[in-house]
């Protein structure tokens, strides 16, 4: 359960959030809508823990625990993460390296054994088949567009199957 209570926040000295209160119960899907500049992105970034966003009042509890002092990666493994509308390409970091590091960080936090590269590749192959990502994408060495597509599908998959976790994201129309 995610509880946002009386959240005030500013960025660059400008107050953006002025007392937002919202409770998201397990299994619920919420859409936050509003015009440009309403603070949708700000809320997402604050929940995810991005630097430069200053919380001036209020609190955010995930399953009863305050998350505002947690680093973004700690929030992520606690079950709260930001699904990017346009996943960033990281020049020089192979998608498989990135995905494996992310998965293993989550497994480690849960106390599960980290996957080796062959175990991970097997898992990826299975997931890729389910998502109809064929081998022509050459998973490991996908060209940029392919990588973006793969990442976006992964984001969508995570959003669709966010079992218990709460996905907060921008909801601009595509």
């Amino acid at each position, binding site marked *: 359960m995610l509880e946002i209570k009386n959240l005030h926040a500013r960025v660059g000295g400008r107050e953006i959030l002025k007392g937002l209160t919202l409770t998201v119960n397990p299994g619920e899907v919420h859409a936050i809508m509003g015009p440009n500049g309403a603070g949708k992105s700000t809320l997402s970034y604050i929940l995810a823990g991005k630097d430069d966003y200053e919380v001036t009042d209020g609190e955010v509890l995930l399953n009863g625990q305050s998350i505002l002092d947690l680093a973004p*990666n700690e929030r992520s493994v606690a079950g709260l993460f930001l699904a990017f509308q346009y996943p960033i390409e990281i020049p020089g*970091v192979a998608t498989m390296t990135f995905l494996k590091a992310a998965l293993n960080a989550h497994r480690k936090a849960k106390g599960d054994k980290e996957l080796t590269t062959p175990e991970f590749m097997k898992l990826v192959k299975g997931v890729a088949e389910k998502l109809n990502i064929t081998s022509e994408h050459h998973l490991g060495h996908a060209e940029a567009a392919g990588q973006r597509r793969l990442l976006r599908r992964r984001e969508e998959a995570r959003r669709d199957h966010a079992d218990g976790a709460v996905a907060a994201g921008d909801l601009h129309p595509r």
Partner: protein
Amino acid sequence: MAATPIQTPAEQALAALYPAERTSLPGTADVIAIRDAAFGGVEKSGLPHRRVEDWKYTDLRARLKTFPPAAGPADVARVLIAAPAVDDDKARRLVIANGRYRPELSDLNGLEPGLSVFSLAKALEAGDADVLAALKLEDAIATNTAVALNTAFMTDGLVIVVADDAVIERPLELVHIAEGEPAASTAVRHLVTVGKGAKVTLIETVESLDTVAHHSNVMTVINVGEGAAVDHIRLQLEPDEAVSLTSLVAKIGQGASFDTFNAALGASLARAQIFAEFTGRDARAGFRGVTMLNGRRHADTTLFLVHGAENCRSRELYKAVIDDEARSVFAGRIAVPSHAQKTDARMMTASLLLSEEAEADAKPELEIFADDVQCGHGATCGAIDDDLLFYLLSRGIPKTEAESMLILAFLGEAIDEIQNQAVHDALIHRVEGWLKARSA
């Protein structure tokens, strides 16, 4: 009125060292004359300082605190058990310990036809005419302080000749090891001649077994014959206390292909100099390197490239990762004389600053006198991209691991150009070690 320069302790040490060593260094009277001329130049001008343009960001006079005495012979037992820097069974290891070529520690079994390897010291003692001729360099190179000190003090090195059309499958690995305490200085000169259409890979590793302020000066002169292909990679792995000066002189013949990669991973003060020249048309060359710095270390990469012939292509890419209060310098000069039409050169340097106090100095210089050329340069300098870092963090990856991934990705663009897999892997291993130590 020229003021008499006040000598620094390092200059005083040099002034005392040279007369003491002069006659015990290998070589005939002709060699001594060459040494005297080189040392005389250094003595006259003193060590270069920041008002000397080529040393603007690496003030040798201020930075070189001492100049240690010449190294004695190495303890062979210690050299023997030293772990190889590059794990490559295929490479032919040639060991230079404390400035002396040690054939008994080197792998000379079954030298390929067309490959010959012999000691520079022996050639100097014998007054070998070809070798003496190869010691002569144009003034701009010969008077460079690191080169002149090498000429004055060189104790040994390898004379390597690859015959025309010989393809040397096994890479030659020139292993430079300094051993012993207290700190000592070494100067090594290699002369490499690669014949027409020949092919060879040269790996150099430079390291010390003791964490003392050893001072090493390694100079490699390579003549790349017409249509030859030479891949040269140097891993400078000195301990943090050491001073490392390296110079590479390359003459690249018509239609030849030459690549050089320098990894500057160690030393408190390091300067890697490259003097390269296209001497024949239609040749291509790649100049690349990575520098990793922390603490108060200083590393300089200085490239002088003369695009001296028509239709030659070169690529330059140097990347530095700088932490703490360290400082990285890149100076790259490309000269294109008026006859060198259709020149194509692209020079790029990028620095990643990991702390507020880290410093990167980049000085690209293009001197273009031909009108039909493509010659570009670029320099970037910045911190780790917050957005990229946040993206990785938001996926659960801890900060130090995320930073390491981004640093490795940054260096990867240059490192992945290394064709030799064993060296590539050895370098990645070292980089990962550096990153691990950083996040510990």
